[in-house]
């Protein structure tokens, strides 16, 4: 049996404002196993980003428990590279924060960057890179601290369509090759189908798990999946469930 990297159990979260309170999620339970790529989709405004903040331990649940094995790496909609740092310094940022920046760790991070084609950009500033390259650098930064689980908050939604397909391909390939566990949150059904091993469909607010579907594709390549006949079948099903 594989280890559970992340486990939500009957999680409830209440948002407080002066005007009142909102129950963002209630009775939410799910797990992510080691090496698994899980995608979560839900109707807009169901508090998807809140779930990631809970998963990252940045928010405490009002009720229930969030159990996490190991460290998290967070990837946001925009690359959020620091413009005053070179790509190299950006990539080393998490190591710097966690005070793990040994000569060895530095070499390892640089090797990872080189492996994925960032070598010539290490001395450049983010403004000198294309959107796709920047998002790749953001992924390498996330991987540099060797997180046990990647939390992806719609990491491709800020890119134009063509770049987006390419970057999705790119990022998926890297995550698979590095055998990383990942939890992707998105509103894009086809993105979820093309990337994940398992798709979790959430209800509207308060968010709960409506359905869970292990995907039965043989290949993990996102573009090949999009060509698969099963793709549209899954799309239709998830579309219906999402709008139910």
């Amino acid at each position, binding site marked *: 049996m594989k280890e559970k990297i992340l486990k939500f159990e009957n999680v409830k979260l209440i948002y407080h404002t002066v005007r009142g309170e909102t129950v963002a999620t209630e009775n939410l339970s799910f797990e992510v196993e080691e090496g698994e790529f899980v995608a979560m989709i839900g109707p807009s405004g169901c508090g998807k980003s809140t779930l990631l*903040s809970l998963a*990252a331990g*940045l928010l405490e649940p009002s009720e229930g428990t969030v159990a996490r094995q190991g*460290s*998290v*790496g*967070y990837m*946001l*909609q*925009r690359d*959020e590279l*620091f*413009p*005053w740092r070179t790509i190299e310094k950006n990539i080393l*940022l*998490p190591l*710097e*924060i*966690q005070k793990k920046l040994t000569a060895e760790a530095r070499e390892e991070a640089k090797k990872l960057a080189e492996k994925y084609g960032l070598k010539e950009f290490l001395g*450049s*500033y983010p*403004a*000198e890179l294309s959107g796709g390259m920047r998002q790749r650098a953001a992924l390498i930064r996330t991987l540099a*601290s060797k997180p046990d689980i990647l*939390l992806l908050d719609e990491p491709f939604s800020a890119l134009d369509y063509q770049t987006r397909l390419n970057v999705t391909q790119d990022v998926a390939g890297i995550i698979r090759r590095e055998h990383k566990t990942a939890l992707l949150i998105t509103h894009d059904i086809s993105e979820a189908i093309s990337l994940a091993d398992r798709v979790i469909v959430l209800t509207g607010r308060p968010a709960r798990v409506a359905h869970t579907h292990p995907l039965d594709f043989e290949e993990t390549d996102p573009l090949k999946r999009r060509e698969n006949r099963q793709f549209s079948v899954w799309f239709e099903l998830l579309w219906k469930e999402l709008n139910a």
Partner: protein
Amino acid sequence: MKNISKPYSEEHRLWLNKRRGKLAIVWTLRVGLLLFFLLFWELSTRFGWVDPFFVSSPSRIAETIASLYTEGTLFYHIGVTLLETIVGFVAAVALGYGIALLLWWSDLLHRVLEPYIVVLNALPKIAMGPLIIIWCGTGSKAIVFMTILVGIIVVIMHMLSAFLETDENKLLLLRSMGANKLQLLTKLVIPSSRAAFISMLKVAVGMSWIGSIMGEYIVSRAGLGYLIVYGGQVFKLDLVMTATVILCALAAGMYFLVVLLEKILVKNTKN
């Protein structure tokens, strides 16, 4: 973008030339405007269109500067004012920046002190004149105090709003990496407020001159502000104009130093 060195096209060369030409015109007009103004000023007093007793003239200003120089007091007065301004400027920036950091750090402190800062900002500092004389005496100390008083609130408000505008997503990212508050400050909040720091310096330079001259109006026995007040009292308007012109030059010089600093900082980060 990395520049790939290759010969420019004819069109690009023409475009560069045109651009250079425009820049030359702007500079010619700038300098021309100054020369025209000086010439007109000089001639209108020579031909008796206006009385040089009231408006002075470029040649009389030059004479005044020369006589101050031979008396040996020119650089003394400049030095006194310059020192007061610079000490006040540096102190206001350092103290103000520190207080802004504290207010960023403690939300409670920020919320408690906010109305006081707003009131202090609105208060005309000159109203504090008599108090300052009693507290600090009539020497340079009082003038530096006035300079700090005029500058510090602007520094605090400017920097605090820059600190508070730090990108929420970048803060979230750092927190997810496990950053503590000090790390948020040093890795993100301070570096991302660099542009605001430079624009604050530009404002603070102006404020420091206001502070030091205002201070010299109230209490002083030396300095450019003193020359202006003294000149006004004895109707030596040549002296008033001379001190004003020197003040213009000094303020411009200090401003350009800040611009130079900006260029160096921007060059080091490219952003």
